[in-house]
């Protein structure tokens, strides 16, 4: 079996007096869809922020493709091929949808002719079905459209690893099915690896090969989705004492 694309070793993070993560080890294999679940405050987004370079871990290392990326600034991690979305979306409100995506595209191909990165931007926007709104300012989008825009921006960085932070919130059942299909196709057609925080358990069950469960800053268990949801400790963590 080959080396995991993304690995965390002994990751800890402390904020003031709060221990947000403690000695977390995890692996995301290339070409898989891995779910990250856990109750609120378990440290899921903190883990994402550490991987994406929003802040460094208090201790531990992050390896991407076998090389350490621990403590690198966010923009450099992005250029290594890791893209992420934000749980609460962060569109560039005053810019159009196409411009939003173009920011990602132009930094992927700095110094290249404009047609090249504009094509990439247009394709990414089309991939999430927002091409009709390309000239609309991002602040006018609804919540679901903003989530799509974030995915389009991530795709325009041409990542090898895509980290999704609760992209299904606010969708109805049918839209959720479409979104799951879309994310699976990203893996099947583009060969993307997906690391995915999600509260919609049905989606995790359907789409992922592996699930990592965090609880109170520690890894509670890791395994195939069916085994994980049947695990007593996981049920206990979600339902509380």
């Amino acid at each position: 079996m080959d080396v995991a694309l993304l690995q965390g070793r002994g990751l800890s993070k402390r904020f003031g007096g709060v221990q947000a993560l403690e000695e977390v080890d995890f692996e995301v294999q290339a070409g898989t869809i891995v779910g990250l679940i856990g109750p609120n405050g378990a440290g899921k987004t903190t883990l994402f922020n550490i991987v994406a370079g929003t802040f460094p871990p208090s201790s531990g290392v992050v390896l991407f493709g076998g090389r350490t990326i621990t403590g690198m600034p966010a923009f450099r991690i992005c250029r290594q091929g890791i893209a992420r979305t934000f749980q609460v979306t962060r569109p560039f409100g005053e810019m159009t949808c196409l411009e939003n995506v173009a920011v990602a595209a132009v930094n992927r191909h700095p110094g290249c002719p404009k047609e090249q990165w504009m094509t990439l931007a247009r394709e990414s926007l089309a991939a999430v079905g927002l091409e009709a709104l390309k000239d609309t300012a991002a602040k006018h989008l609804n919540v679901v459209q903003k989530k799509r825009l974030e995915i389009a921006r991530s795709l325009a960085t041409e990542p090898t690893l895509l980290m999704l932070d609760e992209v299904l919130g606010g969708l109805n059942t049918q839209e959720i099915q479409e979104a799951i299909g879309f994310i699976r196709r990203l893996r099947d057609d583009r060969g993307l690896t997906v690391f995915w925080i999600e509260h919609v358990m049905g989606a995790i069950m359907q789409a992922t090969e592996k699930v990592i469960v965090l609880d109170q800053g520690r890894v509670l268990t890791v395994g195939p989705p069916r085994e994980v949801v049947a695990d007593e400790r996981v049920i206990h963590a979600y339902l509380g004492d």
Partner: protein
Amino acid sequence: MLALSITNGLVIGIIYALTALGVSLVVGIMNVINFAHGEFYILAGYFSYLFAHTMGLDPVVAMVLSIAAVFLIGIVVEYTLIRPTYGDDLYSLILTFILSIVMQSTFLLVFGPFPNKPPNWVKGATNVFGLFLYGNQRLAALIAGAAVIALFFAMLKLTWFGRMIRATSQDREMAELNGINTRRLNMLSFGMGCALAAAAGVILSPVFPVTPSAGVPVALTAFVCVVLGGMGSMWGCVAGGLVLGLVENLGAAFVSTGYKHVFMYLILILVLLIRPSGLFGRSET
């Protein structure tokens, strides 16, 4: 010479610390730098001059009234100008900067360009440790400044309001989740920040008379203190104030008087280069 410089440094340092505490409080709670901080200091100086000189009130009563008046004005400023800019640092910087210029030109129109000085509270001089004569007014300023700082820290430690402040400056989101009304807290903190500037103003204006534009160096020194001590750290701020006061006076005595105020900027540059989180700041925010 050395002993005199150190004493001068301590007196000034305490006042710097007092002024900087107000900036630090507002940064910690609201993540806003009030560029009109120095003008609130000056405003309090003018108020105490008006109350004591023109209306003939007792100097101490005049001081307390001045601080209270500036506190109220601070609250009004927060409510009308700062509150709508939450989350937009750019506009709070711009608004408070414009406010500082507006206040300066108002001072100029009302009081004219000449220095104004409230009456001294005490007269004469004391022989300090048999080394040199030192003005009683300056010694009184040292004591009053230290007393206000002590009072402020006691408030932080002991009162409900102080606990709110400490909780919010540590983690704003957590404080909101725990039901702290951050809007009201912001308003009170901003008012209190202005009141601390006012306290420094009334204490120091008998020694250094106020002029319309004298607030600029006061505010700048407070900003350097806050960066030196670490943004949002209250103790750091006091230490920063004392360090600056001493460096400035020793520098003036032994290096150059004309460049007295440049020393603190050298310190600022060093801090930014070597330890941007300041002496007592947390390295991660």
